[in-house]
C-alpha cells in the first residue's frame, strides 16, 4: 500500500511537470497573445481551502507590455471590488536554457515578489506551477491560461493542500481585449 502510494505520488509528480518528458521547444513567444490592454472580470474565492464557496468579484484593467522582443513581459493589474482598489504586477521571464516561463507576482500592498511560478505551454494551454503558504500551510499553486482567442482568454489559479491530488479553484479572471 505504501509502495502504491509512492507510485501514485510519482505519477502525480510526472503529470505536474510534463515538460520533463518532452523535447524542449522554443516557447519564447508563447505569451505574445497576452500583450496589450484587457478588461478583466475576476472571481476570487474567499476561503479557497475551506468548505465555503463564497466568492467576491472584481472588475479592472490589465496592461501587458513586452521587453526584450517578447522574451519578458510586465503586466500591471488594477481592479476594484468590495474591499476597494487592488493593484498587482507580474514579471514574466523566459528562461532560454530551461525553455520555461517564470511568473513573478507582487501586489502594491506588500511591495515584494511572491515565490515564482514556473512552467510552459502545451497545445495552446499554459500551465505554471508554484508554491505558496496560506494560514501557515505550504500549498501548491497552479496557474492556467486557456480558451486563448485573439480577443479573450481565461486565467485561472487553483490551490492544492494535498500535494496535487485535489485542486480547488481560487481565482478566475476572464479577460476581454479593451
Amino acid at each position, binding site marked *: 500500500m505504501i509502495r502504491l502510494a509512492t507510485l501514485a505520488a510519482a505519477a502525480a509528480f510526472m503529470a505536474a511537470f510534463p515538460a520533463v518528458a518532452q523535447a524542449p521547444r522554443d516557447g519564447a513567444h508563447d505569451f505574445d497573445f497576452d500583450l496589450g490592454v484587457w478588461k478583466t472580470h475576476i472571481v476570487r474565492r474567499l476561503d479557497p481551502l475551506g468548505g465555503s464557496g463564497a466568492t467576491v468579484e472584481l472588475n479592472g484593467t490589465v496592461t501587458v507590455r513586452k*521587453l526584450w522582443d517578447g522574451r519578458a513581459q510586465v503586466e500591471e493589474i488594477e481592479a476594484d471590488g468590495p474591499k476597494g482598489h487592488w493593484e498587482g504586477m507580474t*514579471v514574466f521571464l523566459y528562461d532560454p536554457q530551461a525553455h520555461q516561463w517564470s511568473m513573478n507576482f507582487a501586489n502594491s500592498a506588500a511591495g*515584494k515578489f511572491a515565490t515564482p511560478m514556473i512552467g510552459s505551454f502545451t497545445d495552446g494551454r499554459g500551465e505554471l506551477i508554484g508554491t505558496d503558504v496560506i494560514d501557515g500551510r505550504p500549498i501548491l499553486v497552479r496557474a492556467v491560461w486557456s480558451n486563448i482567442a485573439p480577443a479573450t482568454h481565461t486565467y485561472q489559479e487553483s490551490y492544492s493542500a494535498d500535494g496535487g491530488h485535489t485542486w480547488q479553484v481560487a481565482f478566475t479572471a476572464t479577460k476581454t481585449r479593451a
Partner: protein
Amino acid sequence: MIHLRVFVTGLVLLAAPVAAAPRDGAHDFDFDLGRWHTQSSRLMHPLANASDWVDLDGETNVSPIWGGKGNLAEYKAQGPNGPLELIAIRLFNPKTQQWAINFATPGVGTLGAQPGVGEVRDGRMTFYDQEDYAGRQIWVRFQIWSIDADHAQSEQAFSVDGGKSWEVNWINRYTRLPA
C-alpha cells in the same frame, strides 16, 4: 558661534531619526523616471584584485508602475563583449517604508532570487543583500542617487568582510534624454 553651531548640529542629529520614521518614501525614486543616456564601467573580474574595467555606452528607460510606487528600469548597452540588456524592478513596501530592487537578464531568464532592500541613506538610495558569488557568500550593495535634475549615478559594490570594505564593480553615469 562655533560652539553654538555644534550644539545645533547635535540637536538636529538627535532629532533626525525620530523625525525620519514617519516620512513617506513612496516617491523616493521619482527622480529616476524617464530616459537616460548611460555610460557604464564594469569590473569584469570582481573580488580578484583585478582592474579590467570595460566601458559600455547605452540607454536606460525608467517607467512608473502603480503611479510610481514601483518602477521598471530597462537598460541596454553596447560594449566590447557585445550588447548587454537587463531590467530592474523597484517596488515600494508601504509597511516597512523600504524599497526592494530585483534584477533580471535575458540570458538567465529568471528573476534574481534575492532582492536588494533599502532606503535613502545619506542622500543615496542604498540597497543591500547577501548573495552567492563564485560559491562564496558576499554582501552586495547597490546605490543610486540624483546629482541634479539631468544627472544621476549608480554603483554596485561587493564586500567579503561583512561590509567593512567594499569593492565597486559597476558604475553607471546617467544623463537625461528628451522624453
